[in-house]
């Protein structure tokens, strides 16, 4: 590496003469490059996540435009209050996550760790409510496709053509995929928490905390779209 250029950039980062701090991977020239790469990578990844969900949103709007009455009738079977509670959980967790990132940036690792724990707790609470919702659906046979029990339509044969099995199919695949993302998010938060406890982050190096934060906000954002589209159909 050409020392003249690199030394200057290191000084800028506040690392003085320490050419390779422990967190700097060998193939990067300086911490700025590593941080820039990690952030760009994360944003691209979030882009792929959005594009993936966009396919599901398209499927949802297709179904809704084709069978508006069916969607309207069957969305009533979703529990609005549980959905609202979960929305509250996730929005609050986004706040605690943002605070955790901020604390990490200013070097308050202890506070950051506690806030991460609170975020994890909200994530788990979301999954508990999800579990309750799902078990109620299973109990009443409100399921996708063939598993849909026909008796729920009050004895009236709903009919397969554009029937409720379509709505519950979309419901389960959208909330299910989102739930998987919440679980992955919780896993990442635990990982970040453990690293924080071990003192891996400082005011100079906190990129992983930031990136997990971005991911968690995306999970939150997707839910903010899912909730009105599925639970509050007008």
């Amino acid at each position, binding site marked *: 590496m050409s020392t003249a250029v690199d030394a200057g950039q290191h000084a800028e980062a506040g690392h003085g003469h320490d050419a390779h701090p422990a967190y700097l991977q060998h193939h990067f020239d300086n911490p700025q490059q590593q941080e820039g790469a990690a952030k760009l990578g994360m944003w691209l990844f979030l882009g*792929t996540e959005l594009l993936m969900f966009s396919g599901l949103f398209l499927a949802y709007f297709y179904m809704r435009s084709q069978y508006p009455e069916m969607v309207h009738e069957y969305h009533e079977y979703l529990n609005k209050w549980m959905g609202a509670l979960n929305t509250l959980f996730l929005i609050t967790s986004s706040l605690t996550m943002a605070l955790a990132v901020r604390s990490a940036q200013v070097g308050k690792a202890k506070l950051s760790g506690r806030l991460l724990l609170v975020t994890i707790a909200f994530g788990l609470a979301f999954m508990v409510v999800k579990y309750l919702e799902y078990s109620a659906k299973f109990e009443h046979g409100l399921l996708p496709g063939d598993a849909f029990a026909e008796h729920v339509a009050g004895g009236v044969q709903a009919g397969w053509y554009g029937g409720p099995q379509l709505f519950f199919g979309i419901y389960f695949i959208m909330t299910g995929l989102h739930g998987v993302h919440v679980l992955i998010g919780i896993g990442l938060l635990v990982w970040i928490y453990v690293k924080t406890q071990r003192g891996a982050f400082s005011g100079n190096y906190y990129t992983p905390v930031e990136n997990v934060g971005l991911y968690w906000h995306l999970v939150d954002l997707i839910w903010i779209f899912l909730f009105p589209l599925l639970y509050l159909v007008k």
Partner: protein
Amino acid sequence: MATTTVEGAAPAHEHAEELDFYKASRGIKSWLLTLDHKRIGLMYLAGVLLAFFAAGVIAIIFRAELMTPQIDLLAPAVGEGSATIGRELYNKLFTLHGAMMVFVFIIPAIPAALGNFLLPLMLGAKDVAFPRLNLLSFYVWLTGTLILILAILAGQLDTGWTFYTPYSTSTHGAAPVVLAVTGAFVLGFSSILTGLNFVVTVHKMRAPGLTWNRMPLMIWALYSTAVIQVLATPVLAITLLLLLFENAFNVGIFNPAMGGDPVLFQHFFWFYSHPAVYIMILPGFGIISEIIAIHSRKHIFGYKAIALSSVSIAVISFLVWGHHMFVSGQSEFASALFSFLTFAVAVPTAIKVFSWVATLYKGSISFNTPMLYGLIFIFTFSIGGLTGLHLGTLSTDVHFHDSYFVVAHFHYVMMGGTVIAFIGGLHHWFPKMFGKMYNENHGRIGALLVFLGFNLTFFSQFVLGAQGMPRRYAEYDPEFQGWHVASSIGSFILAAGLLWTLIYLLMALKNGKKATANPWGGASLEWATSSPPIAHNFHDTPHVDSDPYNFPEIDHTMKTGHH
């Protein structure tokens, strides 16, 4: 090299103690757990070549079957329903051939195998931005491939590589389709990981002085490809997920009997799979730009035009998917629009072809093996591209749709384009990758066999398609036999040429002459390090102060005329 100052590179005596990346560490584990982009690239290379071989053998088997109008080779000699067994086997074979070639071979062939090896070298970087992600993408690819192979062994997979609904959700029990779709889904993730890694690498890992306008065109091509991989593949992932869901629960979203829409599936599928065509061909364009310029010792004509045409192809490729659905019942307005946009892709593509030809003009051309493949590419790809216009035209497409004309067209583009470029690139960078030279004359013979075999195989199929021979049939009317036999013989010649190539390249690995650091006199950074490169690519970070096509012998008084 003369205009690219590379501080401290090359002079071997200075760094005699530094070993090349093969010798830097030893043992099977040092390969399987490597984070070195060069080793990962080579593991990919071995993998994709195996896949190419397997899928190629399958093609030869059904080309042999197609020598005669009736089903014979694939059917058991005796017994009731033996013809049915043969037909079903035929359906399985072409599905395998397509799925393996597309998902396992062509998509990763240039970016993940050659690209992985070359991208950091050409950028003057030590590695890609995320080496661990890079290794992960390899194992994800391997997993996806194994699942796909399992699907094949599991039973009757005969949907074709496109998995069209409702057939793919109702045929032969769900197991093989579910497995195959899972395999493609997993392979998609591998592709996303590579793409993401490459985009970040190009943005963040360029050597000092390597501005966007000094990047080799191969990098521009890999970059455009990576952007498509990142933007399109997630849509494939969700499509396949919906298809899996459909198979598991019979939701009905793609099933007309239940109020769903199979055309919706087609929209989803082609929204990925048309851009995917450019994931396959764009890296090929990059290779050809390098080969044509270096081996004709002339500055590439229209550098910016070629670079930006890659980007504009990447953009337009997202707007043309409907041309696969002209006869599916989509609205006529949509068809007309998609047809128009399809023609629009021809413009940036033609810019590239004209630029290559203009680069050759008055160049000092060496007719070595890479250059021969470059010339073959221009010839066959032009045919492939122009026949694409026949298919993009609404009226002619109605006639050609689902015929051998389509088969011939995409083989001219995919095989005559991408695979030819891949083989050309393999020869061009062979000295760099393995530190050995192959025998030029052997190379020329191979190129000739491939050229003749390829054109005989697929030109015959243009004729067959125009005469009305539909694709994907094990049996056909006797009047088609002549062209079918010609096509089959061509495929045997092609196979012989490819086998020959494989053999002399393997021989060169063992007995080839030692390659110098820069055997072709290239000016881009990969030629500035030793052959094969050291583990960290460069002894010192290189600095770039000129563009990669400023060959030392170029007469700079002439150069102004090019731009």
